[in-house]
Protein backbone atom coordinates (compact mmCIF):
# COMPACT_ATOMS: atom_id res chain seq x y z
CA UNK A 1 0.00 0.00 0.00
CA UNK A 2 1.01 3.52 -0.53
CA UNK A 3 1.00 4.61 3.07
CA UNK A 4 1.81 2.78 6.21
CA UNK A 5 -1.69 2.84 7.67
CA UNK A 6 -2.15 -0.76 6.61
CA UNK A 7 -5.57 -0.10 5.15
CA UNK A 8 -6.72 -2.75 2.75
CA UNK A 9 -7.17 -0.83 -0.42
CA UNK A 10 -8.21 2.44 -1.90
CA UNK A 11 -6.24 4.95 0.13
CA UNK A 12 -3.33 4.74 -2.23
CA UNK A 13 -5.36 6.63 -4.75
CA UNK A 14 -6.63 9.35 -2.44
CA UNK A 15 -3.76 11.64 -3.29
CA UNK A 16 -2.23 11.82 0.17
CA UNK A 17 1.51 12.02 -0.03
CA UNK A 18 2.84 10.82 3.29
CA UNK A 19 5.92 12.92 2.85
CA UNK A 20 3.89 16.10 2.89
CA UNK A 21 1.22 15.07 5.31
CA UNK A 22 3.20 13.64 8.16
CA UNK A 23 0.87 14.53 10.97
CA UNK A 24 -2.21 13.06 9.40
CA UNK A 25 -4.20 11.06 11.83
CA UNK A 26 -4.20 8.02 9.62
CA UNK A 27 -0.46 7.52 9.70
CA UNK A 28 0.43 5.60 12.85
CA UNK A 29 3.86 4.83 11.50
CA UNK A 30 4.99 8.42 11.52
CA UNK A 31 5.48 9.95 14.91
CA UNK A 32 5.40 13.65 14.21
CA UNK A 33 8.19 15.46 12.51
CA UNK A 34 10.67 15.07 15.34
CA UNK A 35 11.66 11.62 14.18
CA UNK A 36 15.00 10.86 12.68
CA UNK A 37 15.00 10.40 8.91
CA UNK A 38 17.23 7.55 7.89
CA UNK A 39 16.19 7.03 4.32
CA UNK A 40 13.62 7.46 1.62
CA UNK A 41 11.82 4.69 -0.20
CA UNK A 42 10.59 5.10 -3.74
CA UNK A 43 8.19 2.91 -5.62
CA UNK A 44 6.67 -0.18 -4.22
CA UNK A 45 7.88 -3.39 -5.72
CA UNK A 46 11.59 -2.76 -5.61
CA UNK A 47 11.71 -2.36 -9.38
CA UNK A 48 14.02 0.54 -10.03
CA UNK A 49 14.90 0.08 -13.66
CA UNK A 50 12.46 0.14 -16.51
CA UNK A 51 8.99 1.51 -16.56
CA UNK A 52 6.78 0.91 -13.59
CA UNK A 53 3.39 -0.27 -14.80
CA UNK A 54 1.99 -0.87 -11.35
CA UNK A 55 1.01 2.72 -10.77
CA UNK A 56 3.00 2.86 -7.56
CA UNK A 57 6.18 4.14 -9.20
CA UNK A 58 5.78 7.67 -7.94
CA UNK A 59 5.40 6.62 -4.34
CA UNK A 60 7.80 8.33 -1.95
CA UNK A 61 7.98 7.25 1.64
CA UNK A 62 10.28 8.60 4.30
CA UNK A 63 11.76 6.13 6.74
CA UNK A 64 11.65 7.86 10.08
CA UNK A 65 12.84 6.32 13.32
CA UNK A 66 11.60 7.62 16.67
CA UNK A 67 13.41 10.84 17.59
CA UNK A 68 14.74 12.26 20.81
CA UNK A 69 12.44 12.54 23.78
CA UNK A 70 12.43 15.39 26.27
CA UNK A 71 11.91 15.05 29.94
CA UNK A 72 10.08 13.75 31.87
CA UNK A 73 10.62 10.29 30.49
CA UNK A 74 8.26 8.70 32.95
CA UNK A 75 8.56 5.89 35.46
CA UNK A 76 12.02 4.91 36.59
CA UNK A 77 13.52 6.26 33.38
CA UNK A 78 14.06 9.71 34.91
CA UNK A 79 15.73 8.15 37.93
CA UNK A 80 18.16 6.21 35.78
CA UNK A 81 18.87 9.22 33.59
CA UNK A 82 19.44 11.46 36.65
CA UNK A 83 21.74 8.92 38.26
CA UNK A 84 23.71 8.43 35.07
CA UNK A 85 24.11 12.14 34.47
CA UNK A 86 25.08 12.71 38.08
CA UNK A 87 27.62 9.89 38.01
CA UNK A 88 29.11 11.23 34.78
CA UNK A 89 29.39 14.70 36.27
CA UNK A 90 31.21 13.25 39.26
CA UNK A 91 33.79 11.90 36.84
CA UNK A 92 34.25 15.34 35.34
CA UNK A 93 32.30 14.70 32.17
CA UNK A 94 29.61 16.88 30.70
CA UNK A 95 26.53 14.69 30.23
CA UNK A 96 25.43 16.62 27.15
CA UNK A 97 28.70 15.68 25.43
CA UNK A 98 28.43 12.04 26.39
CA UNK A 99 24.75 11.39 25.77
CA UNK A 100 23.79 12.50 22.30
CA UNK A 101 20.13 12.05 22.94
CA UNK A 102 17.71 9.99 24.89
CA UNK A 103 14.85 8.17 23.24
CA UNK A 104 11.85 6.73 25.00
CA UNK A 105 9.84 4.57 22.68
CA UNK A 106 7.51 1.64 23.29
CA UNK A 107 8.33 1.67 26.98
CA UNK A 108 12.04 1.30 26.40
CA UNK A 109 14.75 3.76 27.34
CA UNK A 110 17.59 4.27 24.89
CA UNK A 111 20.69 6.36 25.47
CA UNK A 112 22.55 7.33 22.34
CA UNK A 113 26.17 7.57 23.48
CA UNK A 114 29.09 9.27 21.76
CA UNK A 115 31.29 6.38 20.85
CA UNK A 116 34.47 7.49 22.62
CA UNK A 117 32.63 7.61 25.96
CA UNK A 118 31.07 4.16 25.66
CA UNK A 119 33.44 2.31 28.04
CA UNK A 120 33.10 5.04 30.67
CA UNK A 121 29.33 4.96 30.47
CA UNK A 122 29.25 1.16 30.57
CA UNK A 123 31.52 1.09 33.61
CA UNK A 124 29.41 3.72 35.34
CA UNK A 125 26.22 1.84 34.61
CA UNK A 126 27.70 -1.35 35.93
CA UNK A 127 29.37 -0.02 39.07
CA UNK A 128 27.11 2.74 40.38
CA UNK A 129 25.05 1.13 43.15
CA UNK A 130 21.95 3.03 42.11
CA UNK A 131 22.28 1.86 38.52
CA UNK A 132 23.95 -1.56 38.78
CA UNK A 133 23.38 -2.99 35.33
CA UNK A 134 25.27 -6.23 35.94
CA UNK A 135 24.24 -8.14 32.87
CA UNK A 136 25.03 -7.05 29.37
CA UNK A 137 23.04 -9.09 26.91
CA UNK A 138 25.53 -8.54 24.18
CA UNK A 139 25.74 -6.24 21.25
CA UNK A 140 23.65 -6.23 18.14
CA UNK A 141 24.33 -4.05 15.14
CA UNK A 142 22.09 -2.43 12.57
CA UNK A 143 23.25 -1.09 9.25
CA UNK A 144 21.48 2.03 7.97
CA UNK A 145 23.11 2.85 4.64
CA UNK A 146 20.88 5.90 4.30
CA UNK A 147 21.85 7.40 7.64
CA UNK A 148 24.85 9.33 6.35
CA UNK A 149 27.75 9.68 8.75
CA UNK A 150 26.33 7.18 11.22
CA UNK A 151 25.62 4.17 9.09
CA UNK A 152 26.55 1.49 11.58
CA UNK A 153 24.70 1.37 14.86
CA UNK A 154 25.82 -0.87 17.69
CA UNK A 155 23.06 -1.60 20.17
CA UNK A 156 23.72 -2.84 23.70
CA UNK A 157 21.03 -4.01 26.07
CA UNK A 158 21.88 -3.83 29.73
CA UNK A 159 19.89 -5.61 32.37
CA UNK A 160 19.92 -4.83 36.05
CA UNK A 161 19.15 -7.95 38.05
CA UNK A 162 19.29 -5.93 41.26
CA UNK A 163 16.71 -3.35 40.18
CA UNK A 164 14.99 -5.46 37.50
CA UNK A 165 15.47 -2.84 34.82
CA UNK A 166 16.47 -2.92 31.20
CA UNK A 167 18.00 -0.10 29.19
CA UNK A 168 19.53 0.21 25.78
CA UNK A 169 22.70 1.97 24.70
CA UNK A 170 23.12 2.89 21.07
CA UNK A 171 26.39 3.92 19.51
CA UNK A 172 26.95 4.82 15.91
CA UNK A 173 29.93 4.88 13.62
CA UNK A 174 30.29 5.93 10.00
CA UNK A 175 30.97 3.37 7.30
CA UNK A 176 34.27 5.07 6.52
CA UNK A 177 35.56 4.81 10.07
CA UNK A 178 33.90 1.74 11.60
CA UNK A 179 35.55 1.93 15.02
CA UNK A 180 33.87 1.63 18.39
CA UNK A 181 35.68 1.11 21.69
CA UNK A 182 35.30 -2.38 23.07
CA UNK A 183 33.49 -2.95 26.36
CA UNK A 184 34.99 -6.39 26.93
CA UNK A 185 37.02 -5.00 29.84
CA UNK A 186 33.76 -3.99 31.52
CA UNK A 187 31.53 -6.82 30.37
CA UNK A 188 33.64 -9.87 29.46
CA UNK A 189 30.50 -11.48 28.09
CA UNK A 190 30.73 -9.20 25.08
CA UNK A 191 33.84 -11.00 23.86
CA UNK A 192 32.00 -13.26 21.43
CA UNK A 193 29.22 -10.79 20.76
CA UNK A 194 31.69 -8.19 19.53
CA UNK A 195 33.43 -10.77 17.39
CA UNK A 196 30.08 -11.71 15.93
CA UNK A 197 29.26 -8.10 15.09
CA UNK A 198 32.68 -7.65 13.57
CA UNK A 199 32.17 -10.77 11.53
CA UNK A 200 28.79 -9.71 10.19
CA UNK A 201 29.09 -5.92 10.00
CA UNK A 202 32.78 -5.10 9.94
CA UNK A 203 32.55 -2.93 13.03
CA UNK A 204 35.99 -2.84 14.61
CA UNK A 205 35.93 -2.85 18.39
CA UNK A 206 39.10 -1.14 19.53
CA UNK A 207 40.63 -2.81 22.54
CA UNK A 208 39.03 -6.20 21.99
CA UNK A 209 41.54 -8.92 22.98
CA UNK A 210 41.22 -10.98 19.79
CA UNK A 211 38.88 -9.55 17.22
CA UNK A 212 38.63 -12.31 14.64
CA UNK A 213 35.84 -13.86 12.64
CA UNK A 214 33.72 -16.18 14.70
CA UNK A 215 30.89 -17.47 12.53
CA UNK A 216 32.13 -17.27 8.98
CA UNK A 217 35.26 -19.09 7.76
CA UNK A 218 38.44 -17.17 8.52
CA UNK A 219 39.10 -16.37 4.87
CA UNK A 220 35.62 -15.08 4.11
CA UNK A 221 35.39 -11.91 2.05
CA UNK A 222 33.01 -9.19 3.09
CA UNK A 223 30.60 -8.70 5.97
CA UNK A 224 27.49 -10.67 5.13
CA UNK A 225 24.80 -9.01 7.22
CA UNK A 226 25.39 -5.49 5.98
CA UNK A 227 22.64 -4.18 3.79
CA UNK A 228 24.92 -3.86 0.77
CA UNK A 229 25.85 -7.54 0.91
CA UNK A 230 23.53 -9.70 -1.17
CA UNK A 231 21.59 -12.44 0.49
CA UNK A 232 23.24 -14.75 -1.95
CA UNK A 233 21.56 -17.83 -3.25
CA UNK A 234 22.86 -19.83 -6.12
CA UNK A 235 20.74 -20.67 -9.14
CA UNK A 236 18.64 -23.75 -8.59
CA UNK A 237 18.19 -25.72 -11.72
CA UNK A 238 14.78 -27.26 -12.17
CA UNK A 239 13.97 -28.34 -15.70
CA UNK A 240 16.02 -25.50 -16.99
CA UNK A 241 14.42 -22.89 -14.76
CA UNK A 242 16.55 -20.54 -12.78
CA UNK A 243 15.29 -19.42 -9.41
CA UNK A 244 16.83 -16.10 -8.50
CA UNK A 245 18.07 -15.41 -5.01
CA UNK A 246 15.32 -14.10 -2.78
CA UNK A 247 16.78 -10.61 -2.79
CA UNK A 248 16.55 -10.47 -6.57
CA UNK A 249 12.90 -11.40 -6.67
CA UNK A 250 10.11 -8.91 -6.53
CA UNK A 251 9.81 -7.39 -3.15
CA UNK A 252 7.74 -4.76 -1.43
CA UNK A 253 9.83 -1.82 -0.42
Amino acid at each position, binding site marked *: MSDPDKSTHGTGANGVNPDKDLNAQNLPGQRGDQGEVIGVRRGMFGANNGGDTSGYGGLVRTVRLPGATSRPYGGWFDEVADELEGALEEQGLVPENVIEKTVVDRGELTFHIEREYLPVVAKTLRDDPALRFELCTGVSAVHFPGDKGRELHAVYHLRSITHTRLIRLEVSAPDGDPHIPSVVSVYPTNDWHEREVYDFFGLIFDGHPALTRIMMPDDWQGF*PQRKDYPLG*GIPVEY*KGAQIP*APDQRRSYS
Partner: protein
Amino acid sequence: MGLEEKLPSGFLLSTVEQAAGWVRKSSVFPATFGLACCAIEMMTTGAGRYDLARFGMEVFRGSPRQADLMIVAGRVSQKMAPVLRQVYDQMPNPKWVISMGVCASTGGMFNNYAIVQGVDHIVPVDIYLPGCPPRPEMLMDAILKLHEKIQGSKLGVNAEEAAREAEEAALKALPTIELKGLLR
Protein backbone atom coordinates in the same frame (compact mmCIF):
# COMPACT_ATOMS: atom_id res chain seq x y z
CA MET B 1 39.04 -57.73 0.60
CA GLY B 2 39.05 -57.08 -3.09
CA LEU B 3 38.95 -60.75 -4.00
CA GLU B 4 35.29 -60.60 -4.99
CA GLU B 5 36.09 -57.90 -7.52
CA LYS B 6 38.28 -60.33 -9.47
CA LEU B 7 35.67 -63.05 -10.01
CA PRO B 8 34.64 -63.80 -13.57
CA SER B 9 31.15 -62.87 -14.66
CA GLY B 10 28.54 -65.58 -14.29
CA PHE B 11 26.76 -67.66 -11.71
CA LEU B 12 29.53 -67.45 -9.13
CA LEU B 13 29.75 -63.68 -9.28
CA SER B 14 26.00 -63.15 -9.00
CA THR B 15 25.87 -65.51 -6.03
CA VAL B 16 28.70 -63.66 -4.35
CA GLU B 17 26.97 -60.39 -5.17
CA GLN B 18 23.83 -61.53 -3.42
CA ALA B 19 25.74 -62.78 -0.42
CA ALA B 20 27.84 -59.64 -0.20
CA GLY B 21 24.81 -57.41 -0.63
CA TRP B 22 22.94 -59.26 2.07
CA VAL B 23 25.87 -59.06 4.45
CA ARG B 24 26.51 -55.42 3.74
CA LYS B 25 22.93 -54.29 4.06
CA SER B 26 22.39 -56.20 7.27
CA SER B 27 25.04 -54.36 9.23
CA VAL B 28 25.36 -50.84 7.98
CA PHE B 29 27.26 -48.69 10.43
CA PRO B 30 26.19 -45.06 10.21
CA ALA B 31 28.69 -42.36 11.11
CA THR B 32 27.36 -39.76 13.52
CA PHE B 33 27.06 -36.80 11.28
CA GLY B 34 24.40 -34.81 13.04
CA LEU B 35 24.35 -31.15 12.16
CA ALA B 36 21.07 -29.50 13.02
CA CYS B 37 17.40 -30.24 13.66
CA CYS B 38 17.53 -33.46 11.65
CA ALA B 39 20.21 -34.78 13.98
CA ILE B 40 17.71 -34.75 16.81
CA GLU B 41 15.29 -36.77 14.71
CA MET B 42 18.13 -39.10 13.79
CA MET B 43 18.86 -39.65 17.47
CA THR B 44 15.17 -40.17 18.08
CA THR B 45 15.18 -42.84 15.40
CA GLY B 46 17.96 -44.59 17.25
CA ALA B 47 16.17 -44.32 20.59
CA GLY B 48 13.47 -46.47 22.11
CA ARG B 49 10.27 -45.86 20.20
CA TYR B 50 11.57 -46.15 16.66
CA ASP B 51 14.46 -48.44 17.49
CA LEU B 52 16.77 -48.53 14.53
CA ALA B 53 18.33 -51.64 16.03
CA ARG B 54 15.62 -53.64 14.28
CA PHE B 55 17.52 -53.03 11.06
CA GLY B 56 20.97 -53.66 12.45
CA MET B 57 21.76 -49.97 12.46
CA GLU B 58 21.80 -48.96 16.09
CA VAL B 59 25.56 -48.64 16.37
CA PHE B 60 26.38 -45.10 15.36
CA ARG B 61 30.11 -44.90 14.92
CA GLY B 62 32.01 -41.94 16.21
CA SER B 63 34.93 -42.65 13.94
CA PRO B 64 34.35 -42.39 10.20
CA ARG B 65 36.89 -45.15 9.66
CA GLN B 66 34.49 -47.66 11.16
CA ALA B 67 31.44 -46.39 9.32
CA ASP B 68 30.07 -47.04 5.88
CA LEU B 69 27.01 -44.80 5.85
CA MET B 70 26.98 -41.06 6.34
CA ILE B 71 23.61 -39.58 7.20
CA VAL B 72 24.08 -35.88 6.57
CA ALA B 73 21.44 -34.64 8.98
CA GLY B 74 20.94 -30.92 8.70
CA ARG B 75 22.07 -27.80 6.93
CA VAL B 76 25.67 -27.76 5.75
CA SER B 77 27.33 -24.39 6.12
CA GLN B 78 30.19 -23.14 4.01
CA LYS B 79 32.42 -23.55 7.04
CA MET B 80 31.33 -27.15 7.63
CA ALA B 81 31.63 -28.26 4.00
CA PRO B 82 35.37 -29.06 4.03
CA VAL B 83 34.95 -30.93 7.30
CA LEU B 84 32.15 -32.98 5.82
CA ARG B 85 34.23 -33.84 2.80
CA GLN B 86 37.12 -34.89 4.99
CA VAL B 87 34.93 -37.16 7.07
CA TYR B 88 33.56 -38.67 3.88
CA ASP B 89 37.06 -39.25 2.54
CA GLN B 90 38.04 -40.97 5.77
CA MET B 91 35.27 -43.54 5.42
CA PRO B 92 36.37 -46.83 3.86
CA ASN B 93 34.73 -48.15 0.70
CA PRO B 94 32.05 -49.21 0.04
CA LYS B 95 30.22 -46.21 1.47
CA TRP B 96 26.86 -44.57 1.05
CA VAL B 97 25.39 -41.17 1.82
CA ILE B 98 21.86 -40.27 2.83
CA SER B 99 21.08 -36.60 2.54
CA MET B 100 18.56 -36.14 5.34
CA GLY B 101 16.19 -33.21 5.15
CA VAL B 102 15.69 -30.48 2.59
CA CYS B 103 18.57 -28.36 3.87
CA ALA B 104 21.10 -31.09 3.19
CA SER B 105 19.45 -31.99 -0.11
CA THR B 106 18.95 -28.55 -1.64
CA GLY B 107 19.67 -25.85 0.90
CA GLY B 108 15.98 -25.79 1.73
CA MET B 109 14.59 -22.51 2.92
CA PHE B 110 18.06 -21.14 3.55
CA ASN B 111 18.90 -19.86 0.10
CA ASN B 112 21.60 -17.55 1.39
CA TYR B 113 25.28 -16.85 1.70
CA ALA B 114 25.97 -19.24 4.54
CA ILE B 115 24.50 -22.56 3.44
CA VAL B 116 25.74 -24.96 0.80
CA GLN B 117 22.85 -25.43 -1.60
CA GLY B 118 22.75 -29.18 -1.43
CA VAL B 119 25.32 -31.54 -0.01
CA ASP B 120 25.63 -33.19 -3.45
CA HIS B 121 27.92 -30.30 -4.32
CA ILE B 122 30.44 -31.93 -2.00
CA VAL B 123 29.79 -35.67 -1.79
CA PRO B 124 27.85 -38.11 -3.97
CA VAL B 125 24.44 -38.78 -2.49
CA ASP B 126 22.59 -42.09 -2.72
CA ILE B 127 19.28 -41.21 -1.10
CA TYR B 128 17.66 -37.80 -0.84
CA LEU B 129 15.23 -37.64 2.03
CA PRO B 130 12.79 -34.72 2.02
CA GLY B 131 11.19 -33.16 5.08
CA CYS B 132 12.00 -30.43 7.53
CA PRO B 133 12.84 -32.41 9.50
CA PRO B 134 11.79 -35.82 8.16
CA ARG B 135 9.90 -37.96 10.59
CA PRO B 136 11.77 -40.97 12.00
CA GLU B 137 9.53 -43.20 9.89
CA MET B 138 10.75 -41.36 6.82
CA LEU B 139 14.36 -41.86 7.83
CA MET B 140 13.70 -45.54 8.32
CA ASP B 141 12.06 -45.69 4.91
CA ALA B 142 15.12 -44.06 3.39
CA ILE B 143 17.35 -46.51 5.17
CA LEU B 144 15.31 -49.46 3.95
CA LYS B 145 15.45 -48.14 0.40
CA LEU B 146 19.18 -47.83 0.79
CA HIS B 147 19.27 -51.41 2.00
CA GLU B 148 17.54 -52.46 -1.21
CA LYS B 149 20.09 -50.53 -3.18
CA ILE B 150 22.95 -52.13 -1.30
CA GLN B 151 21.43 -55.58 -1.80
CA GLY B 152 21.27 -54.98 -5.53
CA SER B 153 24.71 -53.49 -5.92
CA LYS B 154 27.04 -55.13 -8.44
CA LEU B 155 30.57 -56.38 -8.08
CA GLY B 156 33.56 -56.82 -10.32
CA VAL B 157 32.83 -56.96 -14.05
CA ASN B 158 29.11 -56.57 -13.36
CA ALA B 159 29.83 -53.30 -11.59
CA GLU B 160 31.87 -52.14 -14.55
CA GLU B 161 29.03 -53.11 -16.86
CA ALA B 162 26.51 -51.26 -14.71
CA ALA B 163 28.74 -48.19 -14.64
CA ARG B 164 29.09 -48.30 -18.42
CA GLU B 165 25.33 -48.56 -18.89
CA ALA B 166 24.75 -45.67 -16.53
CA GLU B 167 27.29 -43.62 -18.41
CA GLU B 168 25.63 -44.37 -21.74
CA ALA B 169 22.22 -43.54 -20.37
CA ALA B 170 23.56 -40.28 -19.02
CA LEU B 171 25.09 -39.41 -22.37
CA LYS B 172 21.82 -40.10 -24.18
CA ALA B 173 19.73 -38.17 -21.68
CA LEU B 174 18.29 -34.83 -22.72
CA PRO B 175 19.83 -31.80 -21.10
CA THR B 176 17.52 -30.40 -18.46
CA ILE B 177 16.86 -27.34 -20.58
CA GLU B 178 15.28 -29.54 -23.27
CA LEU B 179 13.16 -31.59 -20.92
CA LYS B 180 9.47 -31.04 -21.43
CA GLY B 181 7.11 -31.55 -18.60
CA LEU B 182 4.01 -30.22 -16.97
CA LEU B 183 5.71 -27.00 -16.01
CA ARG B 184 6.85 -26.02 -19.49
